[in-house]
Protein backbone atom coordinates (compact mmCIF):
# COMPACT_ATOMS: atom_id res chain seq x y z
CA UNK A 1 0.00 0.00 0.00
CA UNK A 2 0.99 3.66 -0.09
CA UNK A 3 3.33 4.66 2.69
CA UNK A 4 5.57 7.59 3.61
CA UNK A 5 8.75 6.28 5.26
CA UNK A 6 11.79 7.85 6.90
CA UNK A 7 15.22 6.93 5.59
CA UNK A 8 17.07 5.35 8.53
CA UNK A 9 20.50 5.01 6.92
CA UNK A 10 22.37 5.77 3.72
CA UNK A 11 25.34 3.62 2.72
CA UNK A 12 27.69 4.41 -0.13
CA UNK A 13 28.34 1.26 -2.23
CA UNK A 14 30.46 2.89 -4.97
CA UNK A 15 31.04 6.29 -6.58
CA UNK A 16 27.53 6.29 -8.07
CA UNK A 17 25.58 3.74 -6.01
CA UNK A 18 23.96 4.07 -2.58
CA UNK A 19 21.78 1.87 -0.39
CA UNK A 20 18.88 3.51 1.46
CA UNK A 21 17.35 1.73 4.44
CA UNK A 22 13.88 2.39 5.80
CA UNK A 23 11.34 0.72 8.10
CA UNK A 24 8.23 -0.56 6.42
CA UNK A 25 5.55 -2.90 7.76
CA UNK A 26 4.40 -5.83 5.73
CA UNK A 27 6.01 -8.91 4.32
CA UNK A 28 8.19 -8.79 1.25
CA UNK A 29 9.96 -11.66 -0.47
CA UNK A 30 13.25 -11.89 -2.36
CA UNK A 31 12.87 -10.47 -5.88
CA UNK A 32 9.93 -8.17 -5.16
CA UNK A 33 10.04 -4.44 -5.83
CA UNK A 34 8.51 -1.19 -4.58
CA UNK A 35 7.48 2.03 -6.30
CA UNK A 36 9.56 4.86 -4.83
CA UNK A 37 8.15 8.39 -4.87
CA UNK A 38 10.56 11.31 -4.81
CA UNK A 39 8.12 14.24 -4.40
CA UNK A 40 8.23 16.80 -7.16
CA UNK A 41 10.46 14.59 -9.30
CA UNK A 42 9.15 11.13 -10.23
CA UNK A 43 8.11 7.72 -8.98
CA UNK A 44 10.20 4.72 -10.06
CA UNK A 45 10.28 0.96 -9.51
CA UNK A 46 13.19 -0.30 -7.37
CA UNK A 47 13.97 -3.86 -6.34
CA UNK A 48 14.32 -4.45 -2.61
CA UNK A 49 17.90 -5.19 -1.53
CA UNK A 50 16.66 -6.28 1.91
CA UNK A 51 13.23 -7.61 2.77
CA UNK A 52 12.99 -7.83 6.58
CA UNK A 53 11.28 -5.31 8.82
CA UNK A 54 14.03 -2.94 7.78
CA UNK A 55 13.90 -2.82 4.02
CA UNK A 56 16.28 -1.21 1.57
CA UNK A 57 16.77 -0.13 -2.02
CA UNK A 58 20.11 0.14 -3.76
CA UNK A 59 20.20 2.95 -6.28
CA UNK A 60 22.64 3.75 -9.07
CA UNK A 61 22.49 7.44 -10.02
CA UNK A 62 21.78 7.29 -13.74
CA UNK A 63 18.68 9.44 -14.38
CA UNK A 64 16.81 12.40 -12.95
CA UNK A 65 14.93 10.38 -10.33
CA UNK A 66 17.88 8.31 -9.15
CA UNK A 67 20.11 11.40 -8.96
CA UNK A 68 17.43 13.15 -6.87
CA UNK A 69 17.31 10.09 -4.59
CA UNK A 70 21.08 10.37 -4.09
CA UNK A 71 20.58 13.87 -2.66
CA UNK A 72 18.48 12.43 0.20
CA UNK A 73 19.93 11.95 3.67
CA UNK A 74 19.12 10.05 6.85
CA UNK A 75 15.72 11.16 8.31
CA UNK A 76 14.45 12.43 4.94
CA UNK A 77 11.06 11.05 3.85
CA UNK A 78 10.17 9.16 0.67
CA UNK A 79 6.95 7.57 -0.59
CA UNK A 80 6.82 3.79 -0.95
CA UNK A 81 4.12 1.68 -2.64
CA UNK A 82 4.16 -2.06 -2.63
CA UNK A 83 5.77 -4.50 -2.41
CA UNK A 84 4.79 -5.69 -5.88
CA UNK A 85 5.67 -8.61 -8.15
CA UNK A 86 6.12 -12.33 -7.76
CA UNK A 87 9.70 -12.70 -6.49
CA UNK A 88 12.00 -15.70 -6.86
CA UNK A 89 10.59 -19.17 -6.28
CA UNK A 90 13.29 -21.59 -5.17
CA UNK A 91 13.28 -24.84 -3.22
CA UNK A 92 15.55 -25.58 -0.31
CA UNK A 93 17.28 -28.46 -2.08
CA UNK A 94 18.04 -26.46 -5.24
CA UNK A 95 21.71 -25.97 -5.95
CA UNK A 96 21.61 -22.38 -7.14
CA UNK A 97 24.16 -20.24 -8.95
CA UNK A 98 23.32 -16.56 -8.58
CA UNK A 99 24.50 -14.16 -11.30
CA UNK A 100 24.30 -10.42 -10.69
CA UNK A 101 25.40 -7.86 -13.26
CA UNK A 102 26.11 -4.26 -12.19
CA UNK A 103 23.56 -2.89 -9.73
CA UNK A 104 21.47 -6.03 -10.48
CA UNK A 105 23.32 -7.84 -7.69
CA UNK A 106 21.36 -5.72 -5.17
CA UNK A 107 18.04 -7.38 -6.08
CA UNK A 108 19.64 -10.79 -5.45
CA UNK A 109 20.99 -10.09 -1.95
CA UNK A 110 17.80 -11.22 -0.15
CA UNK A 111 17.91 -14.55 -2.03
CA UNK A 112 21.63 -15.01 -1.35
CA UNK A 113 20.94 -14.27 2.31
CA UNK A 114 18.21 -16.92 2.46
CA UNK A 115 20.00 -19.64 0.50
CA UNK A 116 23.74 -18.97 0.85
CA UNK A 117 23.97 -19.70 -2.87
CA UNK A 118 27.22 -19.49 -4.84
CA UNK A 119 27.40 -16.13 -6.57
CA UNK A 120 28.93 -14.50 -9.63
CA UNK A 121 29.18 -10.71 -9.49
CA UNK A 122 29.83 -8.98 -12.81
CA UNK A 123 30.96 -5.39 -13.25
CA UNK A 124 32.61 -3.27 -15.92
CA UNK A 125 35.64 -2.54 -13.75
CA UNK A 126 36.97 -2.78 -10.19
CA UNK A 127 35.43 0.53 -9.11
CA UNK A 128 31.94 -0.65 -10.09
CA UNK A 129 32.01 -3.92 -8.16
CA UNK A 130 29.40 -3.51 -5.43
CA UNK A 131 28.18 -5.51 -2.43
CA UNK A 132 30.99 -8.06 -2.60
CA UNK A 133 31.48 -8.01 1.20
CA UNK A 134 27.73 -8.19 1.79
CA UNK A 135 27.52 -11.25 -0.49
CA UNK A 136 30.48 -12.93 1.25
CA UNK A 137 28.63 -12.70 4.56
CA UNK A 138 26.08 -15.25 3.33
CA UNK A 139 27.75 -17.12 0.49
CA UNK A 140 30.81 -19.39 0.68
CA UNK A 141 31.74 -19.04 -2.98
CA UNK A 142 31.73 -15.56 -4.47
CA UNK A 143 33.44 -14.94 -7.81
CA UNK A 144 33.82 -11.56 -9.46
CA UNK A 145 34.28 -10.72 -13.13
CA UNK A 146 35.30 -7.37 -14.60
CA UNK A 147 35.00 -6.60 -18.30
CA UNK A 148 38.38 -4.83 -18.31
CA UNK A 149 40.14 -7.34 -16.06
CA UNK A 150 40.94 -4.73 -13.41
CA UNK A 151 39.76 -7.12 -10.66
CA UNK A 152 39.71 -10.92 -10.46
CA UNK A 153 38.28 -12.73 -13.53
CA UNK A 154 38.85 -10.92 -16.83
CA UNK A 155 35.66 -11.21 -18.86
CA UNK A 156 31.91 -10.77 -18.48
CA UNK A 157 29.53 -12.36 -16.00
CA UNK A 158 28.10 -14.83 -18.53
CA UNK A 159 31.56 -16.16 -19.44
CA UNK A 160 32.34 -16.66 -15.76
CA UNK A 161 28.92 -18.26 -15.22
CA UNK A 162 29.66 -20.75 -18.03
CA UNK A 163 32.91 -21.78 -16.38
CA UNK A 164 31.23 -22.26 -13.01
CA UNK A 165 28.39 -24.30 -14.55
CA UNK A 166 30.98 -26.55 -16.22
CA UNK A 167 32.98 -27.01 -13.00
CA UNK A 168 30.13 -27.89 -10.60
CA UNK A 169 26.60 -29.29 -10.78
CA UNK A 170 23.87 -26.67 -10.37
CA UNK A 171 20.07 -27.06 -10.65
CA UNK A 172 19.27 -23.46 -11.32
CA UNK A 173 20.68 -20.08 -12.32
CA UNK A 174 19.07 -16.99 -10.79
CA UNK A 175 20.06 -13.76 -12.48
CA UNK A 176 19.48 -10.02 -12.50
CA UNK A 177 21.32 -7.40 -14.51
CA UNK A 178 21.41 -5.65 -17.88
CA UNK A 179 19.10 -7.32 -20.41
CA UNK A 180 21.96 -8.11 -22.77
CA UNK A 181 23.60 -10.12 -19.97
CA UNK A 182 20.33 -11.87 -19.18
CA UNK A 183 19.80 -12.60 -22.87
CA UNK A 184 23.06 -14.52 -23.18
CA UNK A 185 22.73 -16.10 -19.73
CA UNK A 186 19.28 -17.40 -20.68
CA UNK A 187 20.56 -18.69 -24.01
CA UNK A 188 23.29 -20.59 -22.19
CA UNK A 189 20.87 -22.07 -19.63
CA UNK A 190 18.40 -23.10 -22.34
CA UNK A 191 21.17 -24.86 -24.27
CA UNK A 192 22.52 -26.62 -21.19
CA UNK A 193 19.01 -27.51 -20.01
CA UNK A 194 19.50 -25.76 -16.66
CA UNK A 195 16.44 -24.13 -15.09
CA UNK A 196 16.74 -20.37 -14.63
CA UNK A 197 14.86 -17.47 -13.09
CA UNK A 198 15.55 -13.93 -14.20
CA UNK A 199 14.32 -10.58 -13.00
CA UNK A 200 13.34 -8.37 -15.96
CA UNK A 201 12.79 -4.65 -16.22
CA UNK A 202 10.59 -2.34 -18.30
CA UNK A 203 9.29 1.24 -18.08
CA UNK A 204 6.48 1.22 -15.52
CA UNK A 205 3.53 3.42 -14.58
CA UNK A 206 1.09 1.75 -12.16
CA UNK A 207 3.30 -1.10 -10.94
CA UNK A 208 0.19 -2.98 -9.86
CA UNK A 209 -0.85 -4.96 -12.94
CA UNK A 210 -3.32 -2.50 -14.33
CA UNK A 211 -2.11 -0.15 -17.02
CA UNK A 212 -0.09 -2.52 -19.20
CA UNK A 213 2.75 -0.06 -19.79
CA UNK A 214 5.40 -2.56 -18.64
CA UNK A 215 4.32 -5.50 -20.82
CA UNK A 216 6.76 -7.69 -22.68
CA UNK A 217 4.84 -9.86 -25.18
CA UNK A 218 1.63 -9.27 -23.21
CA UNK A 219 3.21 -10.34 -19.89
CA UNK A 220 3.23 -7.68 -17.19
CA UNK A 221 6.64 -7.22 -15.59
CA UNK A 222 4.97 -5.77 -12.48
CA UNK A 223 2.37 -8.46 -11.79
CA UNK A 224 3.26 -11.57 -13.87
CA UNK A 225 6.94 -10.87 -13.14
CA UNK A 226 9.39 -9.32 -12.58
CA UNK A 227 10.80 -12.85 -12.25
CA UNK A 228 10.29 -15.21 -15.19
CA UNK A 229 11.56 -18.76 -15.62
CA UNK A 230 13.53 -20.27 -18.48
CA UNK A 231 10.45 -21.60 -20.33
CA UNK A 232 8.53 -18.32 -20.04
CA UNK A 233 11.51 -16.32 -21.26
CA UNK A 234 12.00 -18.65 -24.24
CA UNK A 235 8.51 -17.62 -25.43
CA UNK A 236 9.18 -13.86 -25.20
CA UNK A 237 9.81 -12.48 -28.68
CA UNK A 238 10.64 -9.02 -27.33
CA UNK A 239 13.21 -10.24 -24.76
CA UNK A 240 16.65 -8.82 -25.53
CA UNK A 241 15.27 -6.98 -28.56
CA UNK A 242 12.43 -4.55 -27.92
CA UNK A 243 11.17 -2.40 -25.07
CA UNK A 244 8.38 0.18 -24.89
CA UNK A 245 8.80 3.88 -24.13
CA UNK A 246 6.34 5.77 -21.88
CA UNK A 247 3.93 6.22 -24.83
CA UNK A 248 3.88 2.49 -25.50
CA UNK A 249 5.85 2.83 -28.75
CA UNK A 250 8.41 0.14 -29.55
CA UNK A 251 12.09 0.97 -29.04
CA UNK A 252 15.04 -1.26 -29.97
CA UNK A 253 17.09 -2.41 -27.00
Amino acid at each position, binding site marked *: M*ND*IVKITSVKKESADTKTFEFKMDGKATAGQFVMVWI*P*GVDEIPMSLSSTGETKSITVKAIGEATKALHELKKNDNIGIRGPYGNGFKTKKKDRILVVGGGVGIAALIPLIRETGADTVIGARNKKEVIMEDETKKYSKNVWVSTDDGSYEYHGNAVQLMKEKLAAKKYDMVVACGPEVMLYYAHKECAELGIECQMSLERYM*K*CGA*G*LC*GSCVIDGMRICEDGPVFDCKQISKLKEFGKIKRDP*SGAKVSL
Partner: protein
Amino acid sequence: MSLLRTCIGNLELERPGMVASGIMDETGDSMMRMIKLGAGAVVTKSVGSVKRDGHVNPSFIEFPFGYLNAMGLPNPGIDDFKDEMMIATKAGTIIASVFASSPKEFSSLAERMEIFGASAVELNLSCPHAKGYGIEMGTDVKMVHKIVSTVKNTVKIPVYAKLTPNTHILADIGKAVQDAGGDAVVAINTLKAMSISPEFAMPVLSNRFGGLSGPALRPIGVRAIYDLRSALEIPLIGVGGICSWRDAAEYIMAGASAFQVGSAIASDINIFKKINKGLECFMKEFGYSSIEKMVGAAHE
Protein backbone atom coordinates in the same frame (compact mmCIF):
# COMPACT_ATOMS: atom_id res chain seq x y z
CA MET B 1 -26.51 -21.30 -28.38
CA SER B 2 -24.26 -19.89 -25.73
CA LEU B 3 -26.19 -18.52 -22.78
CA LEU B 4 -23.81 -15.58 -22.52
CA ARG B 5 -24.25 -14.32 -26.08
CA THR B 6 -25.29 -10.69 -26.26
CA CYS B 7 -25.94 -8.03 -28.88
CA ILE B 8 -25.05 -4.36 -28.72
CA GLY B 9 -27.07 -3.14 -31.66
CA ASN B 10 -25.76 -5.27 -34.50
CA LEU B 11 -22.49 -6.21 -32.82
CA GLU B 12 -22.76 -9.75 -31.51
CA LEU B 13 -20.51 -10.94 -28.67
CA GLU B 14 -20.12 -14.52 -27.43
CA ARG B 15 -19.51 -13.20 -23.93
CA PRO B 16 -20.80 -9.90 -22.49
CA GLY B 17 -17.65 -8.82 -20.62
CA MET B 18 -15.10 -6.54 -22.26
CA VAL B 19 -11.75 -5.19 -21.10
CA ALA B 20 -12.26 -1.49 -20.33
CA SER B 21 -10.08 1.05 -22.08
CA GLY B 22 -6.73 1.71 -20.43
CA ILE B 23 -6.21 -1.75 -18.93
CA MET B 24 -3.91 -4.30 -20.59
CA ASP B 25 -4.68 -2.92 -24.03
CA GLU B 26 -1.64 -0.91 -25.08
CA THR B 27 -0.13 -3.73 -27.13
CA GLY B 28 -1.45 -6.34 -29.55
CA ASP B 29 -0.08 -9.18 -27.45
CA SER B 30 -1.74 -8.02 -24.22
CA MET B 31 -5.12 -7.64 -25.98
CA MET B 32 -4.73 -11.11 -27.47
CA ARG B 33 -3.95 -12.47 -24.01
CA MET B 34 -7.14 -10.95 -22.54
CA ILE B 35 -9.31 -12.44 -25.32
CA LYS B 36 -7.77 -15.85 -24.62
CA LEU B 37 -8.55 -15.35 -20.92
CA GLY B 38 -12.26 -15.04 -21.59
CA ALA B 39 -13.00 -11.40 -22.47
CA GLY B 40 -15.76 -11.08 -25.06
CA ALA B 41 -14.01 -8.05 -26.54
CA VAL B 42 -11.19 -5.67 -25.72
CA VAL B 43 -11.47 -1.90 -25.83
CA THR B 44 -8.07 -0.48 -26.77
CA LYS B 45 -6.10 2.10 -24.86
CA SER B 46 -7.35 5.52 -26.00
CA VAL B 47 -5.35 6.48 -29.05
CA GLY B 48 -4.80 9.99 -30.40
CA SER B 49 -3.30 11.52 -33.53
CA VAL B 50 0.21 11.86 -32.16
CA LYS B 51 2.42 10.09 -29.64
CA ARG B 52 1.97 11.10 -25.98
CA ASP B 53 4.04 9.97 -22.99
CA GLY B 54 1.28 10.75 -20.50
CA HIS B 55 1.82 12.38 -17.12
CA VAL B 56 5.02 11.99 -15.12
CA ASN B 57 4.77 9.45 -12.27
CA PRO B 58 3.22 9.19 -9.70
CA SER B 59 0.28 8.52 -11.96
CA PHE B 60 -1.33 5.86 -9.78
CA ILE B 61 -2.36 5.37 -6.13
CA GLU B 62 -3.92 2.37 -4.38
CA PHE B 63 -6.74 2.54 -1.83
CA PRO B 64 -8.53 -0.31 -0.06
CA PHE B 65 -11.63 0.64 -2.10
CA GLY B 66 -10.13 1.34 -5.51
CA TYR B 67 -7.48 3.11 -7.51
CA LEU B 68 -6.75 6.72 -8.38
CA ASN B 69 -4.94 7.30 -11.67
CA ALA B 70 -3.84 10.10 -13.92
CA MET B 71 -2.07 8.28 -16.74
CA GLY B 72 -2.66 11.28 -19.01
CA LEU B 73 -3.60 9.40 -22.18
CA PRO B 74 -0.22 7.87 -23.02
CA ASN B 75 -0.28 6.28 -26.47
CA PRO B 76 2.10 5.77 -29.38
CA GLY B 77 -0.08 7.69 -31.84
CA ILE B 78 -2.47 6.30 -34.45
CA ASP B 79 0.22 5.45 -37.05
CA ASP B 80 2.21 3.25 -34.68
CA PHE B 81 -0.92 1.67 -33.24
CA LYS B 82 -1.60 -0.07 -36.55
CA ASP B 83 0.87 -2.86 -35.69
CA GLU B 84 -0.90 -3.54 -32.38
CA MET B 85 -4.32 -3.63 -34.08
CA MET B 86 -3.06 -6.08 -36.70
CA ILE B 87 -2.13 -8.54 -33.94
CA ALA B 88 -5.17 -7.90 -31.72
CA THR B 89 -7.91 -8.06 -34.37
CA LYS B 90 -6.75 -11.54 -35.40
CA ALA B 91 -7.52 -12.73 -31.86
CA GLY B 92 -11.06 -11.40 -31.48
CA THR B 93 -13.40 -8.43 -31.29
CA ILE B 94 -11.51 -5.19 -30.76
CA ILE B 95 -13.28 -1.92 -30.00
CA ALA B 96 -11.05 1.06 -30.69
CA SER B 97 -11.01 3.87 -28.14
CA VAL B 98 -9.98 7.25 -29.54
CA PHE B 99 -9.55 10.72 -28.05
CA ALA B 100 -9.33 14.04 -29.89
CA SER B 101 -9.86 17.76 -29.48
CA SER B 102 -12.25 18.32 -32.39
CA PRO B 103 -15.04 16.46 -34.25
CA LYS B 104 -12.86 16.29 -37.36
CA GLU B 105 -9.93 14.77 -35.47
CA PHE B 106 -12.28 12.21 -33.87
CA SER B 107 -13.60 11.16 -37.26
CA SER B 108 -10.19 10.82 -38.87
CA LEU B 109 -9.01 8.62 -35.98
CA ALA B 110 -12.17 6.51 -36.17
CA GLU B 111 -11.64 6.11 -39.90
CA ARG B 112 -8.11 4.81 -39.37
CA MET B 113 -9.29 2.40 -36.68
CA GLU B 114 -11.99 1.09 -39.03
CA ILE B 115 -9.29 0.42 -41.63
CA PHE B 116 -7.18 -1.32 -38.94
CA GLY B 117 -10.04 -3.77 -38.36
CA ALA B 118 -11.84 -2.39 -35.30
CA SER B 119 -15.33 -3.85 -34.80
CA ALA B 120 -16.60 -0.59 -33.27
CA VAL B 121 -15.19 2.71 -32.10
CA GLU B 122 -15.52 4.09 -28.56
CA LEU B 123 -15.24 7.87 -28.35
CA ASN B 124 -13.45 8.93 -25.19
CA LEU B 125 -15.61 11.86 -24.06
CA SER B 126 -14.81 11.33 -20.42
CA CYS B 127 -11.11 11.18 -19.48
CA PRO B 128 -10.94 13.39 -16.36
CA HIS B 129 -7.22 14.15 -16.34
CA ALA B 130 -5.96 15.35 -19.74
CA LYS B 131 -6.30 19.02 -20.53
CA GLY B 132 -8.29 19.80 -23.67
CA TYR B 133 -9.61 16.25 -24.03
CA GLY B 134 -12.20 13.87 -22.68
CA ILE B 135 -14.38 15.41 -20.01
CA GLU B 136 -13.76 18.93 -21.29
CA MET B 137 -15.64 18.07 -24.50
CA GLY B 138 -17.88 15.36 -23.10
CA THR B 139 -19.92 17.61 -20.80
CA ASP B 140 -20.91 20.00 -23.60
CA VAL B 141 -24.16 18.63 -25.07
CA LYS B 142 -23.82 20.45 -28.42
CA MET B 143 -20.21 19.39 -28.81
CA VAL B 144 -21.06 15.76 -28.04
CA HIS B 145 -23.79 15.84 -30.70
CA LYS B 146 -21.40 17.31 -33.24
CA ILE B 147 -18.62 14.80 -32.50
CA VAL B 148 -20.91 11.76 -32.67
CA SER B 149 -22.68 12.89 -35.86
CA THR B 150 -19.39 13.73 -37.58
CA VAL B 151 -17.95 10.30 -36.74
CA LYS B 152 -21.20 8.57 -37.75
CA ASN B 153 -20.98 10.28 -41.15
CA THR B 154 -17.46 8.94 -41.63
CA VAL B 155 -17.40 5.29 -40.53
CA LYS B 156 -19.63 2.27 -41.07
CA ILE B 157 -18.69 0.46 -37.85
CA PRO B 158 -20.82 1.15 -34.73
CA VAL B 159 -19.96 4.29 -32.78
CA TYR B 160 -20.09 4.25 -28.96
CA ALA B 161 -19.63 7.24 -26.65
CA LYS B 162 -18.03 6.73 -23.25
CA LEU B 163 -19.47 9.24 -20.80
CA THR B 164 -18.39 10.77 -17.53
CA PRO B 165 -20.15 10.65 -14.16
CA ASN B 166 -18.68 14.09 -13.35
CA THR B 167 -21.85 15.91 -14.42
CA HIS B 168 -25.49 16.41 -13.41
CA ILE B 169 -26.66 16.26 -17.04
CA LEU B 170 -25.67 12.67 -17.87
CA ALA B 171 -29.09 11.85 -19.37
CA ASP B 172 -28.96 14.96 -21.59
CA ILE B 173 -25.51 14.00 -22.85
CA GLY B 174 -26.79 10.47 -23.48
CA LYS B 175 -29.68 11.90 -25.49
CA ALA B 176 -27.26 13.96 -27.56
CA VAL B 177 -25.36 10.74 -28.40
CA GLN B 178 -28.63 9.02 -29.37
CA ASP B 179 -29.93 11.97 -31.41
CA ALA B 180 -26.65 12.17 -33.30
CA GLY B 181 -27.01 8.53 -34.37
CA GLY B 182 -24.67 7.00 -31.78
CA ASP B 183 -25.03 3.21 -31.52
CA ALA B 184 -24.46 2.82 -27.79
CA VAL B 185 -23.51 4.68 -24.63
CA VAL B 186 -20.72 3.41 -22.39
CA ALA B 187 -20.93 4.58 -18.76
CA ILE B 188 -19.17 5.42 -16.60
CA ASN B 189 -15.57 6.65 -16.77
CA THR B 190 -13.66 7.40 -13.55
CA LEU B 191 -14.73 9.96 -10.97
CA LYS B 192 -12.52 13.04 -10.68
CA ALA B 193 -10.59 12.79 -7.42
CA MET B 194 -7.46 13.79 -5.48
CA SER B 195 -5.21 12.49 -2.72
CA ILE B 196 -2.82 14.65 -0.66
CA SER B 197 0.28 13.60 1.26
CA PRO B 198 0.21 15.42 4.64
CA GLU B 199 3.96 14.78 5.08
CA PHE B 200 4.83 16.62 1.88
CA ALA B 201 1.84 18.98 1.90
CA MET B 202 1.17 18.24 -1.75
CA PRO B 203 -1.08 16.13 -3.98
CA VAL B 204 0.48 12.73 -4.64
CA LEU B 205 -0.34 12.55 -8.35
CA SER B 206 1.99 14.64 -10.49
CA ASN B 207 -1.14 15.88 -12.30
CA ARG B 208 -2.61 16.77 -8.86
CA PHE B 209 -5.99 15.18 -9.65
CA GLY B 210 -6.99 12.01 -11.44
CA GLY B 211 -9.82 9.52 -11.83
CA LEU B 212 -11.09 7.14 -9.16
CA SER B 213 -11.86 3.59 -10.28
CA GLY B 214 -12.64 0.29 -8.57
CA PRO B 215 -15.33 -0.99 -6.20
CA ALA B 216 -16.09 2.46 -4.71
CA LEU B 217 -17.43 3.48 -8.10
CA ARG B 218 -19.88 0.65 -8.65
CA PRO B 219 -23.03 2.05 -7.02
CA ILE B 220 -22.51 5.30 -8.94
CA GLY B 221 -22.14 3.43 -12.23
CA VAL B 222 -25.15 1.22 -11.60
CA ARG B 223 -27.27 4.28 -10.87
CA ALA B 224 -25.96 6.00 -14.02
CA ILE B 225 -26.90 3.01 -16.19
CA TYR B 226 -30.32 2.80 -14.52
CA ASP B 227 -30.99 6.48 -15.29
CA LEU B 228 -29.71 6.21 -18.84
CA ARG B 229 -31.90 3.15 -19.47
CA SER B 230 -34.92 5.22 -18.45
CA ALA B 231 -33.93 8.06 -20.77
CA LEU B 232 -32.57 6.29 -23.87
CA GLU B 233 -33.51 3.69 -26.48
CA ILE B 234 -29.99 2.78 -27.69
CA PRO B 235 -28.00 -0.02 -26.04
CA LEU B 236 -25.86 0.66 -22.96
CA ILE B 237 -22.54 -0.77 -21.85
CA GLY B 238 -21.97 -0.65 -18.09
CA VAL B 239 -18.58 -0.04 -16.50
CA GLY B 240 -17.30 0.93 -13.07
CA GLY B 241 -16.06 -1.27 -10.24
CA ILE B 242 -17.13 -4.67 -11.54
CA CYS B 243 -15.22 -7.39 -9.65
CA SER B 244 -17.57 -10.40 -9.82
CA TRP B 245 -20.49 -11.94 -11.73
CA ARG B 246 -22.83 -10.35 -9.19
CA ASP B 247 -21.53 -6.88 -9.97
CA ALA B 248 -21.91 -7.58 -13.69
CA ALA B 249 -25.48 -8.80 -13.11
CA GLU B 250 -26.29 -5.53 -11.33
CA TYR B 251 -25.24 -3.53 -14.38
CA ILE B 252 -27.16 -5.81 -16.75
CA MET B 253 -30.31 -5.55 -14.65
CA ALA B 254 -29.88 -1.78 -14.48
CA GLY B 255 -30.06 -1.81 -18.28
CA ALA B 256 -26.66 -2.67 -19.79
CA SER B 257 -26.44 -5.13 -22.70
CA ALA B 258 -22.76 -5.67 -22.00
CA PHE B 259 -20.21 -4.61 -19.41
CA GLN B 260 -16.55 -3.68 -19.08
CA VAL B 261 -14.04 -4.64 -16.41
CA GLY B 262 -10.94 -2.59 -15.63
CA SER B 263 -9.46 -2.28 -12.15
CA ALA B 264 -10.32 -5.85 -11.11
CA ILE B 265 -7.93 -7.20 -13.76
CA ALA B 266 -4.95 -5.93 -11.71
CA SER B 267 -5.26 -8.52 -8.98
CA ASP B 268 -6.94 -11.25 -11.04
CA ILE B 269 -6.04 -11.70 -14.68
CA ASN B 270 -8.52 -14.63 -14.82
CA ILE B 271 -11.45 -12.44 -13.75
CA PHE B 272 -13.37 -12.89 -17.03
CA LYS B 273 -13.39 -16.67 -16.76
CA LYS B 274 -14.76 -16.40 -13.22
CA ILE B 275 -17.40 -13.83 -14.14
CA ASN B 276 -18.52 -15.86 -17.18
CA LYS B 277 -18.87 -19.01 -15.12
CA GLY B 278 -20.70 -17.29 -12.25
CA LEU B 279 -23.05 -15.45 -14.57
CA GLU B 280 -23.92 -18.67 -16.38
CA CYS B 281 -24.67 -20.46 -13.10
CA PHE B 282 -26.85 -17.60 -11.92
CA MET B 283 -28.77 -17.48 -15.20
CA LYS B 284 -29.45 -21.22 -15.09
CA GLU B 285 -30.52 -21.15 -11.46
CA PHE B 286 -32.83 -18.16 -11.85
CA GLY B 287 -34.20 -19.13 -15.24
CA TYR B 288 -32.78 -16.45 -17.52
CA SER B 289 -32.51 -18.00 -20.99
CA SER B 290 -30.42 -15.13 -22.41
CA ILE B 291 -28.58 -11.97 -21.43
CA GLU B 292 -31.26 -10.04 -23.30
CA LYS B 293 -33.89 -11.35 -20.86
CA MET B 294 -31.87 -9.91 -17.96
CA VAL B 295 -31.22 -6.49 -19.48
CA GLY B 296 -33.11 -3.87 -17.49
CA ALA B 297 -34.85 -6.48 -15.31
CA ALA B 298 -34.62 -4.16 -12.31
CA HIS B 299 -36.89 -1.64 -14.06
CA GLU B 300 -39.89 -3.97 -14.23
